[in-house]
């Protein structure tokens, strides 16, 4: 019988993200907290990547099911909006797993501008370095579309190997 918060967190942490199944909800940074009350009731806090993330219901159901496999049935999964999710919360091993599966992780250096600063204050997310191709490693890539197959991804293509790839955009 698992009862400690640490045990519970380790169980919940293995739930994969439905849209990026190569990483877990822990690696993606959307699992925020796991608590257990005196009567054994478990509360799990998750946060969406984007306001309209359609995967939240699936994630909630997966967490409940995963805990049920371990005999834990008294569970609340709560969605917290604040603090707002940021790609900085993706763990180093999460970033490595994304790249290994052909998805370029978000940029880390957010100090260099893409060069369009003429309008309004520079916002923290309008800053992207060249994205490295997850297939061949070339930095010679370009954005095809800011909006990709899911809310958190943009569509890029590599000029060196010509392969298109998904890029988790900085947020």
């Amino acid at each position: 019988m698992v009862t400690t918060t640490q045990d519970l967190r380790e169980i919940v942490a293995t739930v994969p993200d439905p849209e990026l199944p190569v990483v877990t909800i822990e690696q993606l940074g959307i699992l925020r907290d796991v608590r257990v009350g005196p009567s054994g009731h478990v509360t799990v806090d998750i946060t969406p990547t984007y306001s309209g993330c359609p995967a939240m219901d699936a994630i909630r159901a997966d967490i409940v099911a995963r805990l049920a496999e371990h005999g834990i049935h008294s569970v609340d999964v709560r969605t917290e909006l604040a603090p707002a999710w940021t790609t900085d919360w993706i763990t180093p091993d999460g970033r490595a797993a994304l790249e290994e599966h052909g998805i370029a992780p978000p940029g880390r250096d957010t100090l260099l501008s893409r060069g369009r600063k003429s309008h309004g204050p520079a916002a923290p997310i309008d800053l992207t370095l060249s994205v490295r191709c997850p297939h061949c490693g070339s930095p010679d890539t370009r954005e095809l579309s800011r909006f990709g197959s899911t809310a958190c991804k943009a569509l890029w293509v590599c000029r060196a190997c010509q392969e298109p790839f998904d890029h988790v955009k900085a947020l």
Partner: protein
Amino acid sequence: MTTPRVAYALALGDDALVLAQRLGEWVARAPELEEDVALANIALDLLGQARTLLRYAGDLEGAGRDEDALAYWRDDRDFRNALLVELPNGDFAVTMARQLVFAAYQYELYDRLRASSDDTLAAVAGKAVKEVHYHRDHATQWVLRLGDGTDESRRRMVAGLATVWPYADELFQPDDATAALVADGVAVDPPTLREPWTSYVEGVLAEAGLELPEAAAPRSGGRRGLHTEHLGFLLAEMQHLHRSHPGATW
């Protein structure tokens, strides 16, 4: 009970909901596949914002209405969105003109609403401002591309801006319900957004080589439930399924 805070959450939520529905109409009709995806993604962000805001309005109201009840069972006179977001899509340039006007407004709004004394509104804004930054950038790129493109794209961009311009003013009008909330640090005073909005939009138009549209008589009424004839048709499509089959899921 419809308190000022309920009315405010409804207005913000209805703006997002109605524009999400409009943008969804582009899916499979946009000029290129990437735009189908982009507009669907923007619509999804707005829908997510709308769901949280309407759920919050329903909770505050305390009459047992959830987000679905508010989205599907209100008639047009009960919607509080600005007229701008219910305008028909027109051609792609009209849609991009509306996107620029609205996203630039929503960005300034959410940027300030992050500091709201209302924790829920502050959380919604803190999340959404990052998304809307992408929306504004998307519209900006298109206005530059069309305005600074061919004679035909430029002609259409000019016409698109002229179409939506009279509806921008409503976004910045003060109203009684909001005034009470501004004093408590809950809401952002709409008139304070006009200057930063103007500065951004004028910058984009200047870079695109476009003139500011000529001043036209401002159109308003949406915040008071007085809508154009277009909203009724939009709602009929959006609400039909739920009203015919209450609680349907798939």
